């Protein structure tokens, strides 16, 4: 008999694994992105179930809510020719598989066994809020890396703007304020002329 928690866990893990697989197997890039979104979402659910509610929700907020939206945006705008991208796929598949298997084997050889000495973390006490706990660590012990990360992001912003902002000379645009400020006498010149004499 499985408990409710276990049921939720297995349900969402199954969804996650399936959608992750679908993400790399579907032909349509938009579908692939959507499966990725689903994978993120279920991963977030699993984190929340583990008690890491802050991480889970931030995963949804940042990745699903913002990053993937922009990603989807781009994928929808692009006209990706899947047939052409797939041309080499079958040909290189065996090579790729062999490399992947070798790497997997190596990693298994090296990493199996009791290498990672970290004991499982103790269960948090009641009333524990991991949002608070994270904030506590982030703004005290790790404030230095945190600030550096802020500068990395600043540089990314500067770089993005410096590389994409173009001031095109000669573009035409309206300035409503200018249009309203216009007076008739600025544009219209009234010229006095003597009447022509009838000859």
């Amino acid at each position, binding site marked *: 008999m499985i408990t409710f928690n276990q049921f939720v866990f297995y349900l969402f893990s199954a969804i996650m694994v399936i959608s992750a697989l679908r993400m790399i197997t579907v032909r349509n890039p938009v579908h692939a992105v959507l499966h990725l979104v689903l994978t993120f979402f279920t991963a977030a659910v699993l984190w929340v179930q583990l008690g890491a509610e802050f991480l889970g929700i*931030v995963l949804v907020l940042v990745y699903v809510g913002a990053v993937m939206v922009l990603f989807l945006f781009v994928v929808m705008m692009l006209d990706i020719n899947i047939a052409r991208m797939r041309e080499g796929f079958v040909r290189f598949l065996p090579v790729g598989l062999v490399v992947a298997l070798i790497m997997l084997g190596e990693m298994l050889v090296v990493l199996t066994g009791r290498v990672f000495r970290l004991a499982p973390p103790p269960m948090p006490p009641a009333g524990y809020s991991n949002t608070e706990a994270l904030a506590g660590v982030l703004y005290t012990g790790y404030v230095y890396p945190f600030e550096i990360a802020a500068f990395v992001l600043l540089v990314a912003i500067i770089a993005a703007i410096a590389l994409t902002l173009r001031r095109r000379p000669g573009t035409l645009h309206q300035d409503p304020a200018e249009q309203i400020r216009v007076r008739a006498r600025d544009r219209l010149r009234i010229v006095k002329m003597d009447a022509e004499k009838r000859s």
Partner: protein
Amino acid sequence: MDGFVSLWNMLPEGLQTLIWILVKIVVIVLPLILAVAYLTYAERKIIGYMQIRIGPNRVGPRGWLQPIADTVKAMFKEVVVPTHANRYLFLTAPLLAFAPALAAWAVVPFDEGLVLADINAGLLYILAMTSLGVYGVLIAGWASNSKYALLGSMRVAAQIVAYEIAMGFALVGVLMAAGSLNLSEIVHAQSGGPGQWFAWPLIGLFAVYFISGVAETNRAPFDVAEGESEIVAGFHVEYSGMAFAIFFLAEYANMILISVLTSIMFLGGWLSPFEGTLLESWFAWVPGIVWLGLKTAFFLLLYLWFRATFPRYRYDQIMRLGWKVLIPVTIVWIFGEGIAIALGWQPWLSGGA
């Protein structure tokens, strides 16, 4: 009755939890849908009066049954799937728009202790859920296989991502003032009379939050996603019948959600506006949910009022307002608030203490 209880006890524990949750959900969702139905009625009536018309008055007395008639009509209409549209996604899109609009209600406290899930990170959860709604719109636009729909959904994506930032920052201000992410505690932090409501110390963020809320729900004057004068009806051009009705439901449910959240976060939620005054005991019998309802109704009225009053923004104006006005305002405000908290200016900002 006893038989019922014993039957209940026979059920496995997991199933019991599941059923309990489902019942709670129904208790929230049913009134919500009813509220949506009558919000549409109110909208048509109020805008009608503002424009010196009468509005719907044929179905039932004073047109009260109009929403019911509309629902029935929508249900019996054919759902047309355009040729070469992506059928599966086309039909999923309305649900993707609707589900987050409902899910967000899970953490909304209607009254003292009256909340489905009293989680610690409620504020973040709300943000996460409201940010998900954009998928429905995006996918609807793409799956419709229509240029207008795609254009509409592209506009939405950019707009929502832009205003989400301002919205998030405004909520950071609330979080700092309340010292908690839990919505009930945010309300508690505002207790002690209307003077304690966050609307006063955070008035800039209050304005930013509500404006971004209007933009997030794609309502006038930010409704370029529909923009009927340029792109017919935007992302839902191709939708008809029930599929369209669900988009409609989602939009209005989101409107109500934003209004409720604004009330909770800036106007003290279920707290009585007469707290700390002589009138407090006179109105002690009024349940908190009524106060919340009244405050919410006020913001809903604002929504309708905007729609009747303002012309639609141009797309670049929307972007400029979002990035160059609202976001800087929030950043400066949060900065000032941080200083106020650090210096311990007590009357309002107790968050740091």
